[in-house]
């Protein structure tokens, strides 16, 4: 079976639009026939043209919108409203078939509910509960009213009848008072619903983000005008129960109503065109990003194209099951809040990112074309790499920190454990030696004396070892005193220049200390006799410098590079100088 080039639903829409043209024109002919006064269109050429333009504009907007926004039902609503718009023309058809007159009279009642629905559902459907309740209530009232009028209203006995005063083929029993009551309820219910519609329009215009306001103001303004006209119509009918199309008040109300509907239809078209323009500008700006955009430039380009400076993109990292920003820093999962919506972006069936943006940007997902999607995927990959880099750096910092903590623990364990035991041992040896001497056993006393000496040497070696593992003075007194001690014990002349008087985080002091310690060892290995050391704070960094008079360096100083790198610092190595910058704030 050959596949249709168009989906069946679209075929229906196209047909509805196409058939509506002759239908509207036919309605016009009927209304204008023999200068009928039972319709507004029959009043003058101008009013007729305006009324037909309004109906056709709705139909055209319906067709265009339903093809531009496949997801929503906005287009369908506009099509239906266009069809209903012409119903009063037919209801006033003098001498028309009774069935057509009866049906047209009932259909005319759904025009306002459809238009109300259309306004409040633009651009992306019924979002809030209150608006949903309003739409449902309006439809239910219209349906009940139509049913009541069909069953009980005999137009012949309707004192305020003006258009179709002859036929009701559905009449079961003529109840003029019930029918009149229904018309009164209709009148005031429509006024109340219109007041609600006006409130929604004003509220939305006031609350809209700039991009939304730009696309939505014609629809909302049209909606507000429609609501105002509906209220005016109800008030006028209350004053003058007989609706006379030739009366200036009713005629003015009708003309303004037509203008409101035209504005509404143009607004729908404007929104479609605006979205196209926006999509094109998104594509263009992304194309301008070039091959290697800096991280985050897509976000700002998109924000600019859409006109929403608050727009944020969070990239999904499947490996870590979390979101990051374009720089690879962990980001909160965007959550829809008041005025903010979240749109997931999918490429190749996989979630790529979440975009947090102002609510009401219709179908952002569709606005973002293939070019943007590719750029997005690229930026996501870049963000992933940056995130991994970030993780690696953190892990390196952790490794060095763990090592330092372990060194401190080891030093303390040696101090409190082995050193204390050796002290006790050397004390015992001394006591034993003294006792042997007292007993005249000089041979044993001499051996014990030797053992005491050995214990003392072991103590001294252990002390040096513990100091090398982690100098307690660094923790207790800071970098300056620790470097001074380092210089005193060094195998070459070490001049300590300026040192910071203030304290820094332990990992910074430890890193700076071991940079100097390793650099001095390295200088000694290269036969240096002198080294100058300086450590100074420069803005947010502790800068450690070391210069010596040894031969050219061959070692890459990997441990020093690791230590400095683990804290996000920088190391510059020259043949006989070394400069390390360690972030310290």
């Amino acid at each position, binding site marked *: 079976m050959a596949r249709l080039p168009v989906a069946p639903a679209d075929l229906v829409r196209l047909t509805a639009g196409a058939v509506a043209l002759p239908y509207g024109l036919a309605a016009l002919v009927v209304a204008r026939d023999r200068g009928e006064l039972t319709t507004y269109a029959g009043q003058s050429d101008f009013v007729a043209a305006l009324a037909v333009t309004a109906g056709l504009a709705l139909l055209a907007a319906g067709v265009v919108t339903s093809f531009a926004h496949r997801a929503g039902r906005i287009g369908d609503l506009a099509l239906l409203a266009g069809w209903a718009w012409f119903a009063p023309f037919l209801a006033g058809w003098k001498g028309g078939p009774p069935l057509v007159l009866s049906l047209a009279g009932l259909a005319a009642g759904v025009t306002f509910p459809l238009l109300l629905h259309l306004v409040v559902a633009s651009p992306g459907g019924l979002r809030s509960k209150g608006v949903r309740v309003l739409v449902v209530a309006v439809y239910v009232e219209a349906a009940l009213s139509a049913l009541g009028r069909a069953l009980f209203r005999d137009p012949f006995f309707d004192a305020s009848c003006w258009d179709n005063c002859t036929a009701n083929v559905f009449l079961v029993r003529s109840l003029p008072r019930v029918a009149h009551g229904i018309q009164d309820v209709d009148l005031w219910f429509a006024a109340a619903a219109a007041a609600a519609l006006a409130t929604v329009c004003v509220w939305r215009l006031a609350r809209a983000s700039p991009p939304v306001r730009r696309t939505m103001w014609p629809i909302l303004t049209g909606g507000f005008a429609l609501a105002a006209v509906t209220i005016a119509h109800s008030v006028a009918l209350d004053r003058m129960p007989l609706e006379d199309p030739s009366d200036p008040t009713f005629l003015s109300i009708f003309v303004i109503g037509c203008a409101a509907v035209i504005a509404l239809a143009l607004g729908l078209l404007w929104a479609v065109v605006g979205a196209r323009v926006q999509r094109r500008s998104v594509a263009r700006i992304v194309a301008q990003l070039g091959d290697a955009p800096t991280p985050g430039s897509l976000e700002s380009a998109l924000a600019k194209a859409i006109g929403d400076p608050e727009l944020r993109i969070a990239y999904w990292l499947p490996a870590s099951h979390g979101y990051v920003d374009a720089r690879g820093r962990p980001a909160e999962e965007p959550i829809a809040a008041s005025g903010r919506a979240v749109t997931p972006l999918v490429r190749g069936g996989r979630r790529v990112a979440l975009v947090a943006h102002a609510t009401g940007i219709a179908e952002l997902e569709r606005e973002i074309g293939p070019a943007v999607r590719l750029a997005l995927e690229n930026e996501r990959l870049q963000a992933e790499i940056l995130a991994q880099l970030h993780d690696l750096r953190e892990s390196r910092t952790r490794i060095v920190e763990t090592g330092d903590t372990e060194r401190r623990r080891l030093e303390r364990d040696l101090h409190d454990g082995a050193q204390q035991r050796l002290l006790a041992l050397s004390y015992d040896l001394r006591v034993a030696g003294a006792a042997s001497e007292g007993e005249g056993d000089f041979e044993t006393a001499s051996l014990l004396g030797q053992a005491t000496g050995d214990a003392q040497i072991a*103590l001294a070696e252990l002390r040096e070892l513990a100091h090398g593992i982690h100098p307690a003075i660094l923790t207790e007194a800071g970098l300056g005193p620790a470097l001074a001690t380092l*210089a005193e014990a060094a195998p070459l002349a070490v001049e300590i220049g300026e040192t910071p008087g203030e304290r820094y985080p332990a990992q910074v002091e430890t890193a700076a200390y071991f940079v100097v310690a390793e650099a001095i060892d390295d200088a000694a290995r290269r036969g240096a*006799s002198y080294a100058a050391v300086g450590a100074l704070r420069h803005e947010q960094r502790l800068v450690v410098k070391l210069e010596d008079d040894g031969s050219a360096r061959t070692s890459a100083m990997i441990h020093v590079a690791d230590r400095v790198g683990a804290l996000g610092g920088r190391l510059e190595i020259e043949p006989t100088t070394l400069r390390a910058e360690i972030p310290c704030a």
Partner: protein
Amino acid sequence: MRVVVADDVMLTREGIVRLLEDAGVDVVAQAADAESLLREVRLKRPDTAIVDIRMPPTHSDEGLVAAQRIRTDHPEVGVLVLSQYVEPSYAMRLLEEYPERIGYLLKQRVFDGAVLIDALRRIDDGETVVDPTIVARVLGRRRRADPLAELTAREREVLGLVAEGLSNRAIAGRLFVTERTVEAHVKQVFLKLALDLNPESHRRVLAVLAYLRDERSS
């Protein structure tokens, strides 16, 4: 002589107490932390407090802080700080504020009873005691243009003993020379090192240590 002993390690504390008692020193109280040490000093008013530098709760420099408190609150009580660290800066921190009746010894040295008793006696006499290992460390430091090279071997020896806190008379006794000879040596050393100081002053220990540690002399 009445002494309070503070060390959180019982083994060490009791060893020291035994040594002191054997030498006829009256140990009036023992303490395991800085707080009880300060309380005992306040109550017992000893001649000297022997204080371990590393004590609870943080095991860092509680002993040093306590020593400074004792010297501030009870100037008549001498303090001998014991440490396992060869840290000239700790010794100097003590000497900077209270150059008299204060001492800094490596812990391992005090188990030689004679050294401990000698140190206590010197502190009691108002002298200063600095551990020879620390003095050796600052004296032995490598220097680019070594001003110490101008000193004779005997002058270096005298300089070291001055840095250890010995008085001229004690130095004379140690070197088997007359006090006048020592005075002459000290004068000569201070002249050569351009130390602008009255060599009789109690502050000469600190001045010498500061000079030896100063990187400008290196």
